[in-house]
């Protein structure tokens, strides 16, 4: 038998039928549904009178439109948001599907709660009407984002017709230096591959560095895969994976666990398998990364400088850079360190997990945010929030001047109450620095939670490594007044 990659194995094990043109009909094991991409799918099911093929393979949760300041009476103030969230709950009742409401202890962002519940498992196919479904690839699951029409198709048929992707291996070796995290690696990879470079590929993250990453860090890495244009980011399941999922509500127990484990251990890429493309990255050389533009691949190390459109050889590249700088209100060739910010956001499906909050709190402990800054921390789930509170992290954030909120997508996507005003600049741990992503006219710099915490303290984009050297609060950077 031919040597296979992890992706090949996941593809083959879910192939319901193969078509002459090489496309395949894939069986979908699990679907997460949220309030934004599911209403039209359920409306379609209702009007066509179709039945849900496998009701117990779906899980519903509202996250995008949820206010992170929970109303005391449980009633969402924004009428449209309230109706949208209610519609999801109503659909769960009508179609008899599992649903976690806003006040449920298991509530949170789809890509945080899937793994928390053990809904996400190695070896499965998992889809969601959300591009960051790549997150679940961290468990060795074939997980990808789809549109609302495809959500409906999965409800009705449990299958999707797909084109098989090519294999791209991103191999990372070496240890992170202090102040460098999975987010920096993810941003550096997106910068290397480019915003569309991953199209047509399933990316597998390999190498000793990746093996050493925790599940939280692996999820951050896989989460950002879509920002390189690829819908699938994968990491082979290993003992770290199994230790994370063992004993969770939806994972197998007893003898079934042992059988599953045997199967999961057969999933990693065969030693002689070939990838169509390979990229090598040395983690030791990585510095903290910051985006400067309006696409996640417009990224530089914290010690770097913004590009100069006049120095570009290609006119198209020059225009692209000039446009991004103009939107961001930045000067060509300026240092990225020192750019003044108005807002800090720590959270999202990229960086809203317990480790992310710990990393930010480690920077903030004993320090206070700059007067000019408004700072928000939003745990990715109710469980992350409880865990953080049990560790006293909420106190660290609150004493530093942060607002401590309830779980939701929050400021990652400007469709709930958390939005930036035009022209406001945000140091953000989310995944997209698109124009208007955090509010019309708002400016986003993507970075790690530790870097966002450092920016909060100084009021400027700051090399977190200077704050991690045990200096007293506020003296980590020369511009702190």
């Amino acid at each position: 038998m031919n040597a296979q990659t992890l992706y090949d194995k996941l593809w083959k094990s879910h192939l319901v039928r193969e078509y002459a043109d090489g496309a395949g009909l894939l069986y979908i094991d699990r679907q997460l549904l949220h309030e934004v991409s599911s209403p039209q799918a359920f409306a379609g099911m209702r009007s066509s009178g179709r039945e849900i093929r496998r009701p117990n393979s779906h899980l519903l949760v509202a996250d995008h439109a949820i206010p992170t300041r929970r109303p005391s009476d449980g009633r969402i103030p924004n009428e449209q948001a309230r109706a949208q969230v209610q519609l999801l709950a109503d659909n769960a009742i009508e179609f008899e599907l599992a649903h976690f409401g806003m006040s449920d202890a298991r509530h949170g962002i789809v890509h945080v709660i899937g793994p928390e519940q053990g809904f996400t498992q190695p070896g499965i196919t998992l889809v969601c009407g959300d591009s960051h479904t790549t997150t679940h690839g961290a468990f060795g699951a074939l997980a990808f984002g789809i549109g609302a029409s495809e959500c409906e198709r999965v409800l009705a048929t449990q299958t999707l017709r797909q084109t098989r992707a090519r294999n791209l291996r991103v191999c990372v070796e070496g240890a992170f230096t202090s102040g460098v995290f999975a987010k920096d690696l993810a941003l550096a990879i997106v910068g290397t591959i480019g915003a569309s470079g991953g199209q047509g590929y399933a990316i597998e993250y390999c190498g000793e560095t990746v093996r050493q990453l925790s599940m939280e860090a692996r999820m951050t890495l896989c989460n950002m895969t879509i920002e390189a244009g690829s819908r699938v980011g994968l990491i082979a399941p290993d003992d770290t994976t199994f230790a994370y999922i063992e004993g969770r509500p939806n994972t197998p127990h007893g003898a079934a666990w042992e059988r599953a484990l045997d199967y999961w251990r057969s999933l990693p890429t065969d030693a002689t398998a070939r990838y169509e493309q390979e990229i090598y990255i040395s983690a030791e050389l990585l510095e903290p990364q910051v985006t400067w533009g309006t696409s996640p691949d417009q990224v530089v190390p914290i010690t770097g400088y913004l590009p100069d459109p006049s120095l570009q050889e290609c006119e198209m590249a020059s225009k692209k850079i000039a446009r991004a700088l103009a939107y961001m209100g930045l000067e060509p060739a300026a240092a990225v360190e020192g750019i003044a910010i108005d807002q800090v956001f720590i959270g999202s499906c990229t960086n809203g997990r317990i480790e992310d909050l710990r990393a930010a709190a480690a920077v903030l402990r004993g320090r206070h945010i700059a007067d000019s800054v408004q700072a928000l921390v939003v745990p990715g789930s109710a469980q992350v929030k409880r865990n953080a509170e049990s560790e006293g992290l909420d106190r660290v954030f609150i004493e530093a001047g942060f607002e401590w909120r309830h779980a939701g997508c929050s400021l990652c996507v400007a469709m709930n109450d958390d939005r930036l005003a035009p022209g406001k600049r945000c140091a953000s741990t989310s995944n997209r620095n698109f124009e208007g992503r955090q509010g019309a006219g708002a400016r986003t710099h993507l970075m790690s939670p530790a870097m966002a915490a450092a920016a909060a303290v100084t009021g400027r984009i700051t090399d977190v490594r200077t704050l991690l050297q045990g200096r007293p609060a506020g003296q980590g950077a020369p511009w702190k007044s």
Partner: protein
Amino acid sequence: MEKLTQVTSIPASLPDANIDTDIIFPARFLLITEKRGLGRYAFYEKRFDADGAARDDFVLNREPWNKSSILITGDNFGCGSSREQAPWALYDLGIRCVVSTSFGEIFEANCLNNGILPVMVKQVELAALHEDAGCARELTADLVARALVRHDGTRIPIGLPEWQSQALLNGWDEIDRALKEDCEHTERFEIFQRETMSWLYDNETRHT
């Protein structure tokens, strides 16, 4: 889905690379749960100023491009969020064909599910089409003949796979087709999977 065989229009040029689905359909309008009537929100921040007045500097606000059915875009058009509101809004605006060197993959699939033809061309071809659009020269996207036909009769092939072409040409409802053609295959798969990976059936979610 409405059939799509041929579209003829003066195309509109949106040359910027990486026009993401947040630009095509800004997030705050995602609170709308309908899929019809979204055209008014398409490219909202580009089309309208802060007071809601149409901006003259946006191509789709200007004659003759305000009637375009074909968009000539920049690289990686429709990247980012999976929101199907983006193609719904484009369709409502009258767009039936988008042309680029590459598309966000989820956006491309969403277009095909909504009667919009995505055409991938080479960089040099794209440059020529942008020029045509700027000069208001008509373009035909002929899916039957599998070609974009320019004003001077030159043709650029449409390389869409057969099954996707057929779905557009016939206006197929993909779910209906799947229910008719695939059910037996799916049942066989489930029987096999239940035998070999029973834990996937014993640890499901539950409606409470």
